[in-house]
């Protein structure tokens, strides 16, 4: 496009930074809550439909089953240029990167250069953890199973240099030790920074170079990179934040975390590359003649060692493993600055699913697509959630009026159940809008079910049966009773109540 623009004022025109433009709003603010997934007959239709239904800027899904790779795409790489997502668009995969990190470390174990049960102080004698017992006993096995016990989420900036990993680790003296190594599962990003340092020490190579040489290159993952300066040359998605729904999406800035976060979450790539990576894992550490791990090591990564999630799910080395009746699924997800991603596969079914999204609510879309894909490709339905009993006092504590812009969710209790009524209001009058929708699409009875969160509920009956409502207590200093409700990936905060 060309334009010849003469300014009338004689002043220099300043082109706007694209990021400073009013954020484009795609949220359908008065949309009804999603009422169940249509019966899509193809991946393309499913991705298109769910992307729209959950208002995600862009989604890319790759599924490999019985020798065929399907890639479904929908939406845009970013809401400023509105370039369509294509199968080539690269997204940040977030914490799925941890599996790459784990894989490289285990390849060094395979070569005898590292050992999973040797205390890490052997390689990093200056490790400054305050808890001396933890300092001298933590091993890579603890790190890769998130059971090291030290505080896991610090994202400070230690510069762009190769030494950023060392600098970050030298700052670990300030991390709290929450439990003894091996005692519990607690998700730990910092552990992977430490693992990267160990790998750099025993090889003398930069961490990113190790992943390139030991995974990207042999598996021919030609669209997988670290660093913005590599991503910028590929068609790339930008992350989108949905901080306040009424403001719509905004481009996530900064684009990425500081350098030392590459080991826990720095890869940028395609869903198809993730599927290839998972195939190597499913196939015992080898793909198309390129071996990246010994078979027993690949199997070790998928062997449950610590229960970490719901009743079906445990953590191995790097991977989560869900053992549903009749179906074993190996999983890792990723959530980074405006990106949500997942990689799942069933080795027994030769079924691989990778979904990349560039908007905060992306997980809702990919969960729905996962369920659809299981049904469509494997004719499998995930087991029903198992109802539990909650005390009346606990139920009363959840009641109230939850509000999000022009939407209200009134939560009350009858004798046995939580009852929610979701409706839109007229912004002028504040009264309920008469939108002609049937009451059955507004009022739901809920029951709690077993979950890793205390207050997950599902709709018992009616057209929305199975829809999940989550109550998320998020106390703050000045508001100890603060609680959110989340449904369909959308969150509303309690404005009145509880009604007890």
């Amino acid at each position, binding site marked *: 496009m*060309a*334009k010849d623009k003469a300014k009338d004022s004689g002043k220099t025109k300043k082109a706007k930074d694209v990021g400073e433009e009013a954020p484009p709003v795609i949220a359908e603010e008065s949309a009804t809550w999603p009422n169940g997934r249509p019966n899509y007959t193809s991946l393309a239709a499913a991705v298109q439909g769910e992307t729209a239904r959950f208002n995600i800027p862009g989604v890319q899904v790759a599924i490999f089953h019985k020798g065929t790779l399907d890639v479904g795409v929908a939406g845009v790489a970013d809401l400023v240029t509105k370039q369509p997502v294509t199968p080539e668009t690269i997204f940040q995969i977030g914490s799925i990167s941890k599996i790459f990190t784990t894989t490289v470390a285990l390849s060094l174990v395979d070569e005898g250069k590292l050992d999973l049960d040797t205390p890490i102080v052997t390689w990093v004698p200056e490790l400054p953890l305050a808890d001396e017992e933890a300092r001298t006993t933590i091993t890579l096995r603890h790190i890769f199973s998130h059971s090291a016990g030290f505080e896991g989420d610090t994202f400070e900036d230690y510069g762009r*240099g190769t030494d950023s990993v060392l600098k970050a680790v030298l700052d670990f003296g300030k991390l709290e030790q929450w439990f003894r190594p091996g005692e519990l599962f607690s998700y730990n990003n910092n552990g992977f920074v430490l693992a990267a340092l160990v790998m750099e020490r025993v090889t003398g190579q930069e961490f990113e170079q190790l992943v390139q040489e030991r995974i990207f290159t042999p598996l021919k993952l030609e669209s997988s990179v670290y660093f913005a*300066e*590599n991503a910028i040359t590929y068609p790339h998605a*930008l992350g989108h934040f949905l901080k306040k729904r009424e403001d719509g999406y905004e481009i996530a800035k900064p684009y990425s975390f500081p350098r030392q976060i590459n080991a826990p979450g720095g890869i940028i790539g395609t869903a198809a590359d993730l599927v290839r990576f998972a195939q190597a894992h499913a196939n015992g550490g080898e793909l198309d003649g390129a071996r990246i791990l010994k078979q027993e090591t690949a199997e070790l990564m998928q062997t449950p060692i610590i229960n970490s999630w719901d009743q079906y799910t445990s953590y191995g080395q790097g991977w989560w493993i869900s053992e549903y009746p009749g179906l074993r699924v190996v999983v890792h997800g990723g959530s980074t600055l405006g990106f949500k991603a997942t990689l799942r596969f069933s080795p027994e079914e030769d079924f691989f699913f990778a979904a990349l999204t560039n908007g905060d609510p992306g997980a809702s879309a990919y969960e729905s697509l996962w369920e659809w894909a299981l049904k469509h490709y494997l004719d499998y339905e995930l087991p029903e959630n198992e109802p539990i009993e909650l005390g009346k006092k606990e139920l009363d504590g959840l009641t109230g009026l939850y509000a999000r812009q022009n939407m209200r969710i009134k939560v009350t209790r009858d004798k046995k159940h939580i009852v929610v009524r979701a409706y839109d209001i007229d912004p002028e009058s504040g009264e309920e809008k008469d939108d002609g929708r049937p009451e059955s699409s507004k009022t739901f009875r809920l029951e709690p079910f077993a979950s890793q969160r205390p207050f997950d509920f599902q709709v018992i009956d009616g057209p929305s049966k199975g829809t999940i409502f989550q109550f998320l207590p998020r106390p703050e200093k000045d508001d100890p009773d603060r609680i959110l409700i989340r449904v369909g990936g959308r969150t509303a905060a309690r404005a009145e109540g509880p009604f007890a």
Partner: protein
Amino acid sequence: MATRSESENDAVETAAWPEGRPAYTSLAAAVQGEAARWNVPGVAVAVYHEGELIEASAGVTSIATKVPLQPHAVFQIGSISKVFATTLALTLVDEGKLDLDEPVITYVPELPLADAEARKTITMRHLLSHSSGLEGDRFGDYGRGDDALDKAIARFDILEQWFRPGEAFAYCNTGFYLVGLITNRLTGKSWEAALQERVLDPWGLSETVLFAEDAITRHHAVGHFLPSREAGLVIARPYWNRRHATPAGGVLSTVGDLVTFAQAHLNGGELNGARVLKAETAQLMQTPFIKAGVNRHYGQGWSIETHDGVAQIGHGGATDGFRANLTAIPEKGFVIAQLTNADPGRTAMEQIEAWALEHYLGITHPKAPIVPADASRLDAIAGVYTRHSMRTTLTAAGDHLAADVTLLDPDSGEEGGQRTFAAYPIDAGDEWVYRVDSGEFAGLTMEFLDLPTADDPNRLLLRLAGRVAAKEPAPKKPRRRTTKKATDA
């Protein structure tokens, strides 16, 4: 106008190189036309003339995404960064923290140059005017860390010293690493943070960024190579970034910000009430200091061309897959900034600038005519000229010099690409200057510098596109260092 379609691109691909430039009647048409004519995927241009800013763009940010290129796209500006680096360094001169004539070892005592005299005598004034005599085109990779400049300078023991400081002009990237390090030391901040605080923020250059992670969330262009017309364009990977070379060539900006930057310089170092440089310092930058070619000098940071008594200041930029140019004519208050995202952008920009100077100012620069060759001079010149990344063999060929260039891998010394061209003597007063007549280097000039040394009283240097190479036999040093592919910054 619409973006060029693929089929139009294909048509350009197979077309013969077009001869003349059409008689465009608007900047938009000129930009559109020249982008297509030279097969440049994206071009952005801003002209400031008589109080008006005129912007135009053509093509796409990337051949992969085909996003239409807007005038506010962020490009690599390459060596135009050196004028930013100079501006920043001179803010320290204005504050009395830096002296242009103090040997730089005062600021960098560990400077490990092999040539003891140069080590003791090179000053900031030499560095900013490319007259230090330091070998200039060494790139290397010293990581992404804040210590990259220190690491790069620690390897300066391998640099050739082409001539005594101040004796001649030889384009010098390495000198600007040193400028960056000195700035870094005197401000106590990273070079990028110092630039942000002392230059970009005061002048409101909010579209100018210093790292790919800041460019990626903006409307940005990606670089492209054109290995040959037949092969077509390919995306340049990786996106060129060498932290230590940022002061020499790593700034990312838009044509709008480049115009604003030039206006601040034309305005004596002050813009909208924000003074970054003293007026006399801004003037010093535009004052010829060392002769750099036909009608051309370097001041401090700026290249200065004079045609019919009218001075044009400016700077070009070339990084992997990007070509950039900024030209200003102080006495006319005229500025043209051009950013392109492919190798052939250089030719497109030359044509667009020539069109714009004629269209807006009625200025034309007729090509210097070819003059008869002096056979004995050609014979004296003939020989092999070498620098670490290029070997040029010149042969006397009657009315011209025949050049045979071999690009050398800076790592291994292995021979890479070959170029052959003819260079004809042109009318350049009492100097012998030879102009390349065709191919990739068309229009570039070759000059020869008689710079005898005690060891080599007949020592002759070839200067091609500002870079020097010594005629063999020349003093040689062992090549120990490994570097990545050399790139013009």
